[in-house]
């Protein structure tokens, strides 16, 4: 099928099978490779994106479900994502970096929903994302730090 995808506010017209998971359309057809493949079955969060602001796993979202919806990936920018990036830098969070696209997107969605998440809030959302390198304590600290950075500038 021919469909229009709106990714980070830009429209891409693609010709794909309608049951293709969005992940592979973004990566292989549109060519934005920041969104990662980790498991393909909703287990690791590496492929996290925002769909109309909602956190979803793009490996388990069919391209036919997203027409006309706003897709937000790690290549995009938003106020909360920028604070998170700053905090990620300050805390030297990544090791191999591979999971961090998904971690940042999941954290963005967390801050979009909850202004000042508690550790429990963080666990609830971020436990969907695996980091095999084990950067979890830094991720937790960086999310708190992003909130602090944001409050400082407001």
């Amino acid at each position, binding site marked *: 099928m021919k469909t229009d995808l709106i990714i980070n506010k830009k429209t891409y017209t693609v010709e794909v*099978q309608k049951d*293709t*998971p969005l*992940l*592979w359309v973004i*990566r*292989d*057809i549109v*060519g*934005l*490779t*920041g*969104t*990662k*493949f*980790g*498991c*393909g*079955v909703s*287990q*690791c969060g*590496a492929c996290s994106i925002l769909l109309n602001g909602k956190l979803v796993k793009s490996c388990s979202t069919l391209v036919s479900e997203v027409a006309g919806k706003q897709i937000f*990936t*790690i*290549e995009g920018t938003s106020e909360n994502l920028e604070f998170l*990036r700053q905090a*990620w*830098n300050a805390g*030297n969070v*990544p*090791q*191999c*970096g*591979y*999971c*961090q*696209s998904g971690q*940042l997107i999941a954290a963005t969605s967390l801050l979009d929903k909850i202004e000042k998440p508690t550790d429990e809030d*963080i*666990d609830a959302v*971020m*436990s969907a*994302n*695996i*980091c*095999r*390198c*084990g*950067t*979890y*304590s*830094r*991720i*937790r600290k960086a999310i708190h730090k992003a909130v602090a950075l944001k409050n400082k500038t407001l």
Partner: protein
Amino acid sequence: MSKIQQINRRDFVKLFGLASGGIILGCNTTTVEKKFKPTISKDYFEPNLFIQIEKNGNITLIASRSEMGQGIRTSLASAIADELEADWDYISVKQAIGHEKYGNQNTDGSRSVRTKLEPMRKMGATAKLMLITAAAQKWNVAESVCKAENHHIINTQTNEKIFYGDLVENASQLEIPDEKTVQLKKVGDFKYIGKTLKSVDLKDFTHGTATYGIDVRIPNMKFAAVARCPVTFGTVKSFQKNNAEKVAGVENIIQIDRLKPPTGKFFGMLGGVAVIANNTWAAFQGKLALDIKWNKGENETFNSEEFKKTLTDRVHQVGKLVPGSHGNVNSAFKKAQQTIEATYHVPFLAHAPMEVPNATAWYQKDKIEVWAPVQDPQTARSELAHFFQIPVENITVNVTFLGGGFGRKSKSDFVVEAVAISKEIKAPVQVVWTREDDIQHSFYHATSTQYLKGGLDKNSKVTGWLQRVGFPSIVSSFKPLSDYASGFELGQGFTKNPYELQNFRLENVKAEANLRIGWLRSVVHIHSGFGINSFVDELAFAAKKDAVQFHLELIGKDRIIKGKSNYPYNSKRLKAVLNQTAKMANWGKKLPQNHGLGVAIHYSFYSYVATIVEVSVKNKNVKVENVWTTIDCGLALNKDNIKNQLEGATLFGMSLAMYGKISTENGAVEQHNFFDYQMTRIKDAPNIEIHIMDKMEEPPTGVGEPGVPVIAPAICNAIFNATGKRVRSLPLVDQGFA
């Protein structure tokens, strides 16, 4: 511009595609451990590692080791920048291709900093010296009145200063100074070494712009997935491709046969049926739609549960005596007040790096180009030359970022697959493994069983120590019928027991391999660390002694044991990390109900580590609450990076302790994906406190791996402390804990 510089520049451009000129230095790292010889020959520049300083002051460094999350690009860059007195903001790092001119590029064994620090520092110092000479000539003063500071050379008499970029033209016309005139900085003068530096790759990591193997895109490339026999080394009997061909996007389906490595080297590939498509998903779907009949071969009878029983039987009978045993354990046991026995087991494990194995290859008539996340690009290159009969100089291996490696990506079977497919279809192709492929066709960390027996005298001193161990050897992946653990493997914590034992006997029992065996982060130390630390805890309990005190007594008096390496074992350093950790954990404190503390120490990759874990256990629900770790890794190059590595090692150790198990039935691996091969998640992550001993005068030792072996035994010892239940067989989920 001088002739030399033009030549250098051209070669630099040729090799790395850098367009700007500047001063470039290289050094020969194959011999660097002892000698440093920067050479720029007249007609050919044959460097191993580079600094390139451009006229705008930018400095580019070539990283010869693979980056897989251990921070090596940043660490080595910081060593050069420090000696060079460079401003960190001007530094960028480029990844080297796989080529023997870079010296050994095999990124494993926690040795990159250990072997490369000094040559890197010397390169920085040499460049600095040349910049000083250039400035001195400009000012017409003696070099001794000039000093380097923050990207400038300063005239100490007049306080004039010149920016590095402005010295490039003059410096590049100078001869490279003799090594003897190059002086390294004193520890107290370090600006970056031993401090905390941010990763040079942070921006790419947080914007999704770092290119991992799986992100490589070249014009007209295809995507492929390979169906491999569920049983190791099984082959294709026949296959039906009708349904697979119907999958939209599938373009081609071919059989690729196993490439068997010659004895002693390389990894070959498993072979199977490859589905080639115009996107990854179509290739995956096509693969699922194949109907394949397999010749499963002799590994079909392999059941890991049965094998566990077999190994358990074997370690309860006399095995082969391992050299290094001493004294007489039998008479020690006879005289002992009490003897303690225990048997421990660790299952097979898979690495499961977040980025699955993958490679992009383009085979063209007489040359091959590859883009891949490999830990060992040179072996990949020679392996390709061997299997495809193409001269090694016509093979280019481009090293991408690695989305984790942990040992998996030092085996280049996935690269061989990509080249084999590209050769058949005459087009560039990217092979991507599914997570299921990764978990079911790995080079597994071996399973092990070990039996320990200890004798305690009436003063509760250990008088005898017998240890029998069996695990399939890594050597089996290179040499068939290697049915006993090898000497180098036993050297990882078994023969080099850190305790002062009068009567010590180590035996090795038979353990054949029915899966491909490989190394995984900290390798055999996982077994030795688990067995030894669990057993010492059992002995301490039997002796009614405090576990930390008991370890300290067992380590014994201060002694230095020189081995073949330049890194002698120093018992004092091991005791020091243990004392430090006990202090951090407030060992002996009163604990809340259901809480327990456990301790473990381990010496590996020449580093000393002690860890204490605090767990809470409610209804067999284990939560790791706190982890305190101290490491003595000699000179600490990048402190925050070392902490990050040890935090990561904690989580890696927790994953294997809690969930890590690969099992087989009828030769096939039973796990599939992260739902049945689980990882620790953020909700499981404890508070972690890391202390790095201040040993800046000692040479640097391993960091990436030594933090792993202590975690599982410390957790199990803590569970015992909390509940009185001893876990001797991993993982914890199998023992009803979760």
